[in-house]
């Protein structure tokens, strides 16, 4: 690993100033949060930044709070802290489970959801859970801020929508509607310390009669980026999640999936597992709509 400059601004204003000089100097600048992807990539020689800006000392990126009806997860908050935040554990058990699947306990103590999202791995575990739950990315720009739904933030393998000079500050989502539940499952050959062959997140909302009024299903590891499978969700709305409805949602998800064949599984295998997981995840989320949280 070659040497590099390191800066750790303590305010958004200072961060903006760092970013403007970075652009001016035309240096290869890299934002650092937990570093669990970045440091490994640097050690493997896949990235060689000349300048690193650590955002962990900025209040906004460290925020973890429920204010009004909105959950804010700062971009650098350690995953373990998010997982243990009472509102997340109670109202977003699917997201909490997705976080729990990241690496090991040690990794979760350092890794951030913001970093997991910016790294934009097609197989990143939290990304489908964030999309299913309607999270938005809050982005610091040169002039101010902009917001993007998470599904629009990831744009390709390892590619996100940040423009030069922009930084992800936080992830925000509305508190879940009544009678709604989320779930996330991934398929891996091993129980843990593994990477998703397929990941599926869902957020389901039902009315008082148990009819599904809203369904967001997000798929991971079956396309260059995690995405919202709108047709799969639409297939559930108006049903009670009967077996035929689950089959229809699974079929729509398999149709939407664009998997590749690689060392982790063939395209056909991935598509098939995607269908199985959609049914399982929707059933799990439905089970949580009536207040069940595990």
């Amino acid at each position, binding site marked *: *690993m070659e040497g590099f400059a390191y800066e750790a601004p303590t305010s958004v204003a200072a961060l903006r100033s760092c970013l403007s000089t970075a652009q001016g100097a035309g240096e290869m600048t890299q934002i650092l949060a937990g570093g669990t992807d970045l440091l490994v990539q640097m050690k493997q020689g896949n990235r060689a930044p000349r300048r690193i800006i650590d955002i962990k000392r900025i209040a906004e990126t460290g925020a973890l709070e429920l204010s009004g009806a909105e959950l804010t997860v700062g971009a650098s908050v350690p995953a373990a802290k998010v997982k243990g935040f009472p509102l997340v554990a109670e109202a977003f058990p699917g997201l909490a489970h997705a976080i729990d699947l990241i690496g090991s306990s040690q990794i979760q103590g350092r890794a951030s959801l913001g970093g997991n999202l910016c790294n934009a791995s097609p197989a990143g575990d939290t990304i489908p859970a964030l999309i299913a739950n309607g999270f938005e990315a809050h982005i610091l720009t040169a002039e101010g801020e902009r917001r993007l739904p998470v599904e629009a933030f990831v744009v390709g393998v390892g590619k996100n929508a940040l423009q030069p000079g922009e930084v992800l500050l936080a992830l925000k989502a509305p508190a879940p509607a009544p009678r709604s539940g989320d779930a996330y499952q991934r398929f891996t050959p091993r129980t843990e310390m593994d990477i998703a062959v397929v990941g599926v997140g869902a957020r389901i909302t039902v009315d008082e009669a148990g009819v599904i009024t809203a369904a967001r299903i997000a798929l991971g590891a079956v396309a260059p980026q995690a995405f919202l499978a709108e047709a799969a969700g639409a297939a559930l709305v108006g049903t009670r999640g009967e077996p035929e409805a689950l089959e229809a949602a699974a079929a729509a998800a398999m149709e939407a999936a664009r998997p590749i064949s690689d060392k982790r599984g063939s395209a056909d295998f991935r598509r098939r597992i995607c269908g199985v997981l959609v049914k399982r995840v929707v059933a799990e989320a439905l089970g949580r709509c009536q207040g069940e949280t595990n």
Partner: protein
Amino acid sequence: MSEAMDFRVIGTRPVRPDGVDKVTGRASFGADFSLPGMLEGAVLRSPHAHARIKRIDVTAALGAPGVKAIVTAEDFPSVAAGAIEGGEGGGDFADLAGNVIARGKVRYHGHAVAAVAAQTRAQALAAAALIEVEYESLPPVLSLDAALADNAPLIDEALKTKGLAEPATTASNLASVIEMGGGDLAAGFAEADLVVERRYQTPTVHQGYIEPHACVGRWVQDDQAMLWCSTQGAFDVRSMTAKVLGQPVGALKVIPSEIGGGFGGKTTIYLEPLSLILSKKSGRPVRMVMSREEVFRATGPASAARLDLRMGFAKDGRITAAEVTMAYEAGAFPGSPVGPGTMCVFAPYRIANFRIKGLDVLVNKPKAAAYRAPGAPQALFATESALDEAAEKLGLDPIELRLRNAVEEGDAAIYGPKFGPIGMRACLEAAAKHPHYLRPKEAGVGRGVAVGFWFNVGLQSSAEVHINEDGTVTVIEGNPDIGGSRASMALMAAETLGVPYESVRVVVADTETAGFSNVTGGSRVTFATGMAVVEASKDIIAQCCSRAAALWSTDQEMVEWRDGAVHPRPGVNVDAQPLSLKDLAGQAGRMGGPLLGKASLNAKGAGPGFSVNLCDALVDKETGRVEVKAFTAIQDAGKAIHPSYVEGQLQGGAAQGIGWALNEEYVYSADGVMENAGFLDYRVPVASDLPMIETQIIEVPNPGHPYGVRGVGETPIVAPLAAVANAVSASAGVRLTELPLSPPRVLAGLDQA
């Protein structure tokens, strides 16, 4: 030696002497060593699976910052062919030299082409990238079929098949053929009521030791050299490295570090000669450490294998005939463990009519190295799968079927010798009575049974026992401790000498301090080096008795050793008090000098190891994913010197075998590049993938060892492959014959059910 023998410390479970250093991070492993002025090395590896080297130009690299030396094959002497003795992996010295650094041709992706020493590792890596190599790429040979096809590209144009009735006249990728047989095969099959005939396949797998290969080499102007390295056998490193470098054995001193796992994979050399020649050229010590990726791409895997097996059974389960053709991938140089595979494949059973054929086949993959019971897991996977299928079809209990065919004391083994006391039947009987076997299965769960077998070996060992002036004991031996052997040696010395375990310290010494010992492998150390420690302790006892007799002015027959002291026998005409080790050691200066016991031996009488494994597995029929719900390993240890480490061997072997069965495999691209050269995608099981592995130690003492020991380190990995596959097949409802039983493969099997 008898079963009724009472032991004082053997069979207890004291803390291992090396434990505190290891759990506190103080232990020094291969990469931890450093010397003043030391350089860091890096290896340039082949980007092709098969190519001719047309030209190597190191000019630019030599001018790069920090670079002090670069070596290629031209810096090494040419090495004459000759068999490697005493190692576990087998093979030939010329091939060993060719594997250390490519000469003229690269034979696998990752084959070392050049090595650089620079002031930092980053500089060495950067310089390696500046070495210009011109290749003429050749079509890679990546499978047994491709290797054995007519007109297959030749990996070694000079290789002629050995073992044929008519000497081979043309070159081929088939390095050797082994054949053995007995009885009347046709008559045996004619007698059969049931014939099971299948092809079984196992993938290339790695030993997966946590510590990558690492060494520091220092060459001095007088051509004396030293090596610090992580190895299972410092003496083997010495002989192999000396041969590759064309140096006398006595000019090289090898100092073994602590070892972070080996499993057979650290019984050969890779970096050691490179670091020494880099040191010779640069005049500085050179450290070389592999990355995990290099470990996967360039160090010894276990052979992928294909077994075409046919077994005939009478209605009562008796095996009437058995026939197998076993093809093992050797990798880029001859020397797969197909030989021991052929000897093991039917070893647990009485089979009058049999024929076994083994093929050692070159492919453009890293040269296979030893991996726990080399060759046996692949072999017994086939046999034990076939027996399971036969039991099912004959309506027999799988343990009962095996009992009806089990070898016993006095039977001639298929590979030649007559079995002494063995634990095959005892293990099967214990399995039949085990709570795991008796309890009902959960819904959907399949239960698998399989037998494991390994010869275990003896070979040469030395030991010294020094009695310090306060009566404490120092044992010096030369076998790196990969499985708790220091504790076992200390227990055997303490038992023999009648002293507390805590007063014995065991030193694993270097090649100039310890007497010669073969590699830590073949499950030989507790048996053979243990025997040397016992002999050396008895040497001490004899010296003590002789000294006491002299002191008491009596004959040696008039004294006896008991409870750690020399006692006068009745009738000794003195007022003699017993003399302890401490008494005698304290008076050594007046009584003949330091007490030093020695033994060097070639241990005969190694006792074969048998095991039975039970596995419960549940298949997710929608995804093909397997969950191992329960696993029990039962094995004959002869005598468990330290039962915790015997149990550890059983559990570790089961964990590795379960990995081999379920998810471990090398995934190759069409051009011969391993695509999963890391622990993320080369899936060794993690703790949460495994149930608690229950163990049961059977003790059928081995008369060839003073305390009844038979080796235990390798047998544990043999049975799990079939135990898992039999359980998975039962849960899936379809017979699965190709490992690993990864989700896609199980799902494909379910589709065909």
